[in-house]
């Protein structure tokens, strides 16, 4: 357990000592602020866009979880798995007194922590910029926080999917490109194959927006939660299988 904790700290530290990862966080903040600025500037001209200070953080969440967050997840996962395999630094952890299962778990927890930090940045910047640009401060903060919280679950499952793909690559760029192509491929396929949209995990990246459409059904939500978690369990198991067999 101590080794697991030690490696989680190590993996998070490794991420933040890389300039690339910190730059991505700054980009996240800039994107959020610019989106708010853009929306507020066109709002006056386009009457049909009903944008207010409450819905803006949720709108940012939709854009972020569907476009930018997947990209950032792929980049982070590729750094921690394929990147380390490519530059042979994965060896530095494998020769320590920690099992491969704990290494795999700790790397994925570190990625989950990175996702949480990203969502916190988006949450804070979108709230602040919306307050600054619209001049209102009447938020339902618990409501918005809840939306950000439940969108974390499918994002972690996407990270586990990327971890599985990353096991087959020795360079981070190869893993990133493959993850992006697969992600786009699944998205396109679910547009054309009827019914696929409901059963594929990438459809639930902005899970909150699906909750808020139509009448809330507890059973339907629990069903979706188990489906997403099952995807996570499958990706984790297969990913670990290949990670355990890896010869460095």
């Amino acid at each position, binding site marked *: 357990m101590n080794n697991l904790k030690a490696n989680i700290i190590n993996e998070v530290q490794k991420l933040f000592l890389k300039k690339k990862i910190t730059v991505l966080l700054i980009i996240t903040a800039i994107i959020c602020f610019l989106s708010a600025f853009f929306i507020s500037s066109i709002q006056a001209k386009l009457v049909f866009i009903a944008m207010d200070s409450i819905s803006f953080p949720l709108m940012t969440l939709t854009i972020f979880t569907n476009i930018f967050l997947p990209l950032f997840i792929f980049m982070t996962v590729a750094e921690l798995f394929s990147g380390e395999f490519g530059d042979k*630094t994965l060896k*530095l952890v494998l020769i320590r007194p920690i*099992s491969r299962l704990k290494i795999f778990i700790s790397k994925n927890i570190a990625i989950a922590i990175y996702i949480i930090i990203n969502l916190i940045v988006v949450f804070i910047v979108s709230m602040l910029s919306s307050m600054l640009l619209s001049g209102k401060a009447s938020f339902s903060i618990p409501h918005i926080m809840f939306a950000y919280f439940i969108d974390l679950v499918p994002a972690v499952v996407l990270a586990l999917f990327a971890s599985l793909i990353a096991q087959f690559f020795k360079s981070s760029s190869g893993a990133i490109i493959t993850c992006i192509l697969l992600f786009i491929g699944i998205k396109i396929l679910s547009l054309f194959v009827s019914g696929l949209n409901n059963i594929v995990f990438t459809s639930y990246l902005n899970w909150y927006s699906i909750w808020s459409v139509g009448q809330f059904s507890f059973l339907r939500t629990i069903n979706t939660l188990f489906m997403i978690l099952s995807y996570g369990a499958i990706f984790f198991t297969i990913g670990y299988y290949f990670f355990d067999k890896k010869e460095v």
Partner: protein
Amino acid sequence: MEKVLKVEGLTKLYNNGRGVVDISFEVYKGDVFGFLGPNGAGKTTVMKSITGLNTFKKGRVEILGFDLKTQFESALRKVGTIIETADLYEYMSAYHNLKIASRFYKNTEIYGIDEILDIVQLTEFKKEKVSKFSLGMKQRLALAVALISKPELVILDEPTNGLDIEGTIAMRNLIIELATTKGITFFISSHLVHEIELMCNKVAIINNGKLINKVEHINIIKEKYASLEDFYMDKVKSVGGGI
């Protein structure tokens, strides 16, 4: 004498048919054990197998009494390793590289970072990024990372590879000093007969994936042969190799 490393019938074959077959030897406390063989003989394969970097189907590895397969974490608790090259996190400072390695151990089990940097004479470069280090400095830092856990066994794969004359001498002297002053057991592979002769007290020779001699004391070898090189050539010729 206390057994530090025991390898029994280790067989590891790659898909291309190459690898090592039925490797068995023992390393005892206080030994500086040389693992000599030409490039491609299987030295690194053995080293990777006994540190868990490679999986192997046949054979058994025991480190400090713990079975590598079933008690992996206990087996590697008191082992320091450098395999192939001195791989380090280049984007980090020397301090952070050591800090990351030290987190796997209790505070009482490890050297202080300043203390270990002093041993490998890198104190003044503590905060400098590893990407700016020379190869010799990287090799010494890698040794510091391997030593941070106060290991009882240190496994070094070609520790002087790529180093210039000064770097080679510094690394060699450091290993000899650590073995004598700290009582660390070393298991060192090399393709350089001269290096093994200067550093080690025992030697095993590997060729074409097989051990071709029993572990022997270098002093005893020197009583029979003019040099370790003559012994090596004799052994290699006896199995149909050599010049």
